[in-house]
């Protein structure tokens, strides 16, 4: 992967040709996405009319599935910028850079984020000092919106620049949680909804209407419950890993989780694999969240059912763990 690119279009073309090679390996797939996104960053920096002063240090980080190294073939963009506090020109520069990156990612085949979690949004593009204040304010306010922002931020991973900035911001969160474990309860309360996917008689529940009739919504029924539950445990234990599998690996080594975590880790790995395998060339972003059940063997259906049921169990397990820590 050493090619250099001079336009987003050529990058997109190259990406589309190459990506199919990584269809059996989530890790390699995500390294490939990292590489592509970094290339977007390089092109974006070159596109800007203003030069970046070498003294303006910064970190460009991704969040969402990219932050967790869980991207499939297609995913939208979630990213932010943090930079050295101080000069006003720097602030203007990075916001412009953020806009260019977002545009570039979009052109390279990463659709804009509907929730506007992008470096082009001043909320996600700030000097370090303001970031710290913002995170403190989020934790203090504890509203649905600010806690959800915290959830999103907690998966951030630096792609370009200084990793220390993000580490420092996450340390703020960890310290706060130690002082006030109630924050974990809020994180839990704001991420409890699981789309129902197994009926009272153990049947798999699929979409009733629309283009995905008869398909199972993997994203909302399976991925999100696992990801959210594990993120809360990671926040509780102050883990620095961002990928759900790595977080589970770390948790597995801790005494209070070692018993349960193995099963959940296997489940999640299977989910990642399934998503890659179910990809069809004609898919657009929304399609990749759905699994066609017709193509599954009976044994696979049962496995899926167990994974979905375990998602609920994992949630209950996390609720108990958080309740205990609050006492």
């Amino acid at each position, binding site marked *: 992967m050493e090619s250099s690119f001079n336009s987003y279009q050529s990058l997109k073309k190259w990406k589309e040709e190459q990506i199919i090679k990584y269809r059996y390996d989530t890790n390699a797939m995500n390294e490939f996405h990292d590489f592509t996104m970094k290339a977007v960053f390089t092109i974006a920096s070159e596109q800007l009319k203003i030069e970046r002063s070498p003294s303006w240090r910064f970190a460009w980080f991704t969040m969402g599935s990219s932050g967790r190294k869980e991207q499939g073939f297609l995913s939208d963009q979630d990213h932010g910028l943090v930079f050295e506090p101080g000069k006003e020109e720097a602030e203007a520069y990075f916001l412009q850079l953020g806009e260019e990156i977002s545009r570039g990612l979009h052109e390279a085949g990463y659709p804009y984020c509907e929730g506007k979690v992008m470096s082009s949004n001043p909320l996600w593009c700030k000097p370090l000092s303001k970031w710290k204040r913002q995170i403190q304010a989020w934790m203090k306010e504890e509203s649905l919106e600010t806690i959800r922002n915290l959830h999103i931020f907690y998966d951030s991973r630096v792609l370009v620049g200084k990793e220390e900035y993000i580490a420092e911001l996450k340390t703020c969160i960890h310290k706060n949680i130690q002082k006030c474990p109630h924050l974990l309860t809020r994180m839990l309360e704001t991420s409890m909804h699981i789309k*129902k*996917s*197994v*009926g*009272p*008689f153990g*049947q798999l*529940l699929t979409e*009733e*209407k*629309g*283009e*995905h*009739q*008869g398909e199972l919504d993997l994203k909302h029924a399976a991925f999100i419950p696992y990801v959210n539950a594990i993120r809360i445990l990671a926040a509780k234990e102050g883990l620095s890993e961002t990928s759900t599998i790595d977080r589970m690996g770390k948790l597995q080594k801790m005494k209070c989780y070692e018993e349960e975590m193995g099963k959940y880790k296997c489940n999640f790995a299977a989910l990642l694999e399934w998503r890659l395998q179910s990809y069809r060339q004609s898919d657009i972003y929304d399609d990749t969240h759905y699994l066609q059940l017709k193509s599954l063997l009976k044994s696979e259906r049962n496995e899926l059912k167990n994974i979905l049921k375990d998602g609920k169990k994992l949630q209950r397990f996390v609720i108990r763990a958080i309740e205990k820590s609050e006492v």
Partner: protein
Amino acid sequence: MDATFLMNSLWVMLGAILVIFMLGGFIMLEAGSTRMKNAGHIAGKTIFTFGLSSLVFWAVGFGFIFGDNANILVGLTNFFYSGAELEEMGLSSSVFFVFQLAFAGIAITIALGGFAERAKLSVYLIFTVLFSAIVYPVVAHWIWGGGWLAEHGKQDFAGSTVVHLTGAMAALAATILLKPRIGKFNKDGSANNIYGHNQVYTALGVLILWVGWFGFNAGSTLTVEDGFFGFVALNTNLAAGAGAVSALIISWVVMGKSDVPTMLNGALAGLVAITASCAFVDTWAAVVIGFVAGILVFYSVRFFEKRKIDDPIFALSVHGAAGVWGTLSTGFFATPELATVGKPGLFYGGGFEQLGVQFMGVAVSGLYAFAVSFIILAAAKKVLGGLRVSEEEEIMGLDLSEHGSYGYPEVFMAEENKRLSS
């Protein structure tokens, strides 16, 4: 004049008022289950077609159903009914007329439910006249006017077949000829949800229908004697309740969510089903009949959708499937004490005889209503150059395309408001 005659007249008049008020329920139910851009049209056409069908009923409908000198299809006296007292009624004949007129009005309203959101206004007009003249009266004559099904002892106390099935079969003919609404089905055959614009309207519509049903069923005793209407009302309410409960349960069991429109359909299906049997069965049977209707309606809706039949307000399932079940149910549950018409049902030692009569009644009546409605609509399609509004008009909404105004002007005339305020 004796007191019973007066009491009967009063009671049935109250029933007529309740049944006519059910139109309010249909307005809310249909408008709530469809989109805003058609709301004014749906509300307005319900009133208009009731008015029109009243005139047709007065001119020919009543005479066809209850007149003397009957042939195999209809009676042939009492056209342009004068209000004169008829023999052996036990209540004011004019009251009886108004009561029957109300039933005919409900039948056409059910039928027109299948036209929702895409038929031309002129089609409503033509179909209302012809349905009220030659579809409904024939079935009503057969079963209630002393026709051949009545002679077989066909049990249909208040009209599961006469009113609901007949209306639903006409709706089926219409949905088939009209084809699905734009956007209902995708190319790959999957269905989309075209959400109704106001679930509160829909629920309130169901409640109004539920209350009106006491006029429909209990009023059909046509007499206050022995207070039997109370028992009919009791059975009616039990079946509605059981339908609501079973529909909610089945939607939760199958889809994993407690679906409100399904539950509302369940209550209505319970009411439709108990309409035939409310005077012939025990209370426990009323609960069973309603319960089964609630489950049946859920599967019926899915059945029609799978076959790409677009039934916007579920008329086929609520009135059709439940109407069939309700009519057959007396063949199982009618008790020897209560079966004043026909014989006891299968579960009471009556064997298959009554069930056979019920089945024949459903099959012949349903087939007749479907075939004649289909012919009327197919002919109308030829004459009018199509039953549907144009694609453009359908998208624009029937409020504007058929009436030039809006049920919700503030929403749809926002452009106008913008212009004025700028």
